């Protein structure tokens, strides 16, 4: 979560951070950012592989 927060802090407004994550990472690391001022979206790409997009 901290690694993600550091990356998000380096994001310029309007830019989106895109990466692959497991279901567990989506639920526990990425999703909490949606209630802390970020837009979080994801699409399932495979059994346990999700393409996550986070923007400010």
């Amino acid at each position: 979560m901290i690694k993600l927060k550091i990356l998000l802090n380096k994001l310029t407004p309007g830019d989106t951070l895109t990466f692959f994550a497991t279901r567990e990472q989506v639920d526990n690391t990425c999703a909490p950012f949606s209630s802390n001022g970020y837009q979080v979206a994801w699409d399932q790409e495979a059994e346990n592989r999700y393409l996550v997009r986070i923007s400010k």
Partner: protein
Amino acid sequence: MEDSANYSSTFFFCTPLSHERIIWCTECIASGAGITPEQGRIFTVFLTGDALFSFVDATSRESWNALSKVPSVQIVADGDELRLHGLCVSVARAAPGICITERGGGTLFWEQLISHLAAEWKGTKKAAFLLCHPPYMSRIPVHMLRFLSGAYAAGLSPELYAYLDGLHNIHNGQRPSEFENIGRAIATLARKSGESGKDPWFAACSRCATARGYFQMNPGTGYCEPASSIDEITIRPLKEILSRFPGFYPILSHTSGGIVNPDRSRDQDTRPRLIIFITNPPYGTEWTFGGLSLALATAMEGIPTTVVFIEHGVYSLYGTHEVPPNDKVFNVQEMVAATLDIPSLCYLVHAPSLERRGIGVEEHLIGIREVQNNDLAQILWDHDYSATRILFF
């Protein structure tokens, strides 16, 4: 301290207490307690294990004696552990104001602690322990078992959260030749509690478990699975463990505390806030990273969280940290700087700890507020929260 709110505060220590910690802790408690009991504040300090040496140490015993004379403060020492360490007679003589539990087969102190916590966290049906120490090298897992077994005997559901090196307690096949088998005792307690209709919840942090090899990727399924761990403990993401924290119940750790406002304990929002003391240097151990990770995760869940850099923890904010290119370690200052904007997270630094070391806060972190002991006492006791949890890392 002008506020007259009614609070019951409990502190628990079972690791060595430095002179520095005793000074700031006792000053804070004395400041919070005031000099008369009229404020309706009750302070109880429970000590066991290596913390007991502070009663005989010439640099710290006077602080305990002075604190024990404050009318609203009670200090309880584990009599069985004092006898184990050969300290019972000298402590009884040198510190007459300290309550020493009777000889009790290792359980009386814990019964007293649990009964006190159950009364403080009125209506609680459970009690938890955040375990960060490994078995055998440390006696803290034994203290954890005494506490959770006592909680079970008192009719509460035990909860265990294994974190950092506390993960090694979940290793299966433990077979100590001399010591109490911690793995087996945890499994037995979890089973016994479940079979008797309680709702035990024994969990271990998945990040810490993966790092230590107890949670391994199955290449066939793409999912991680427990490896070499006892069945009674479930490996879960830290977020799931912290989802328990909004509950109104006590959580102990090797050094911890709790503050409860009995007038507010029936309020709708009884979610305890969290105060984390970072007391260790930044990189030599996992304590600082573990404390900051836990603080960030609780704050992201909306739990008001305050991190206080104190004692050697102030080194996290000193100088400019640069991680060498091939060193896979988190830059603690980068962690702090990146999380300054999280609304539920507040960082503080203990000014006496900085002064004692003759250092200051690095320029780019200068926005972190410096606090004196009386400020800390106000932060701890002058507020509207129904409850506060205090954890040391």
